[in-house]
């Protein structure tokens, strides 16, 4: 009886083993998610302390005062298979349409934030072509990529997207160089005349946690911008970012220069505080205003922001104070000009 029992156990184990050997040949491959979907939704309330319906501070987005307003629905899809990658990112809403991208010839929005294809020619060399978010600057259009909800003057007056062809060569994990040719104007789906704006980016990461990007974008129609964007995660909780840029309009008729500092401190995994301090100057003597900053004027802006996170949701309360040195574009509640403007914004951003 015992022998029969033992024999049946052995036989069962043998059959199990045979089965196991079959299945080990088809160990499932590491998870490939197939198509990746990502995006965000954002909404906000803004209060201009002067009580103005037309907000004093005129940097990009969060610009509808005394109103509960919407940002955008941002929807992106991405797929990388072997050496080929595509990204398509669509956006709907004020932030994702007329405030950040151009309309097509029929005045309808194409809704395209990113539409490009990339290919790894070698392990170190990549080529990418299409309509891409600009490589210049610290802040970006998607609210999930920024700490502050309102944006800087440097961001508002710099490029948003560049359509073109670029090559990126990674010398090591710590040094890479990108160079490319882009449409003759910024933020256009179609060039005016040709593809003649030259762009380049040198990335260096001198120590762990510190990355710096030296950017150049130069074209006869688009002008020339030199930009430094860098951030350093000094400790696990403290991060310092810096953006400095100077832009010369075509034919040297104007431009801007400025610098912004971004110290941020994470109190916990769910709560972080940050400050943006920015100096921005309109270099033009006679050309138009830039974000309401008159030619020859400069502005100093301080934005104190908190990020409160739970899952994909980030709650962003923010207070901002801007101060111009002359030719004030700001007005008080009684309509009299003033050199200062202040606002409170509270935003909710859900990223996925």
């Amino acid at each position, binding site marked *: 009886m015992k022998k029969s029992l*033992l024999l049946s156990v052995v036989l069962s184990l043998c059959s199990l083993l045979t089965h196991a050997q079959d299945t080990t040949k088809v160990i*499932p491959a590491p998870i*490939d998610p197939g198509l990746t979907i990502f995006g965000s939704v954002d909404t906000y309330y803004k209060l201009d302390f002067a009580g103005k319906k037309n907000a004093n501070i005129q940097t990009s987005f969060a610009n509808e005062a005394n109103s509960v307003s919407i940002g955008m629905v941002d929807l992106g899809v991405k797929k990388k298979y072997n050496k080929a990658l595509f990204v398509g990112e669509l956006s709907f809403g004020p932030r994702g349409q007329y405030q950040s991208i151009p309309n097509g010839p029929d005045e309808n929005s194409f809704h395209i934030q990113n539409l490009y294809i990339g290919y790894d020619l070698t392990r170190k060399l990549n080529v990418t072509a299409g309509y891409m978010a600009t490589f210049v600057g610290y802040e970006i259009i998607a609210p999930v990529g920024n700490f502050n909800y309102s944006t800087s003057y440097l961001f508002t007056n710099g490029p948003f997207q560049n359509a073109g062809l670029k090559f990126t060569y990674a010398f090591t994990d710590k040094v890479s160089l990108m160079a490319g040719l882009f449409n003759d104007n910024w933020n256009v789906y179609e060039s005016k005349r040709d593809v003649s704006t030259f762009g380049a980016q040198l990335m260096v990461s001198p120590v762990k946690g510190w990355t710096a990007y030296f950017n150049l974008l130069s074209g006869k129609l688009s002008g020339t911008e030199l930009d430094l964007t860098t951030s350093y995660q000094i400790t696990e909780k403290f991060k310092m970012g810096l953006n400095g840029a100077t832009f010369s309009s075509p034919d040297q008729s104007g431009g801007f220069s400025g610098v912004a500092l971004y110290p941020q401190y994470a109190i916990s995994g769910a709560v972080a505080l940050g400050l943006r301090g920015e100096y921005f100057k309109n270099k033009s003597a006679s050309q138009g205003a830039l974000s309401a900053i008159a030619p020859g004027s400069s502005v100093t802006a301080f934005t104190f922001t908190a990020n409160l996170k739970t899952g994909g949701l980030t709650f962003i309360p923010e207070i901002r104070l801007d101060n111009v040195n002359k030719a004030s574009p700001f007005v008080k509640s009684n309509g009299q000009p003033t050199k200062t403007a202040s606002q409170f914004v509270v935003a909710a951003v859900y990223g996925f």
Partner: protein
Amino acid sequence: MKNIILALIVFLVSAHSYAQSTALVLNDNDKLMYYQVNSLSLGDTLQPVPTVNEFIKKKYPDIRIAKNQSEAAGIQGKGRLTLYHKGLVFGQEEGQLSFDLKIDFKEEKYRVMASNLTFMPLQRNRYGTFTPVNGIAYAWEELPKKVKDTQYESYTSQVVNYFNYLNKQLEVYLTSNDGQDAKTANPQRISTKEW
């Protein structure tokens, strides 16, 4: 007879559990690592180390093998693996594992080791792709304090699965007579007339 049968049971069970790892293990320094020893039959024709290097390079482009490897020193390299959150329909990159890989050879066996397991969270960048958060990296032992339990289990499962897969592919490659991989290896010839 009973002893023989019991010994056979023990052998079969141990042989089965020897087939692949199901978890990370702690090494001599209390660091988590992947560790798997594989036996080879006497009749197996091992591929020389340089061709194994080429195999790893071809199959695992995210593993950088150090140059000038010798059979005595084994194979060493550094690699990366993207870790995903897998939803019902779609997935998304959430983290990246970096690791040191070492493959050692000895008589009739070899071992695959992945150590210095480090997790870097990923964030979406301006181009709609996902890149490591600058300056944030956690040793695998610290990870349970930094992510949810379900995330930790999922990441660990993905890591073990990845190295088991590499281990299996390597075994097939090493023991194939002409150094072909599993996909291109000549199939075994059988007779359908006699069974």
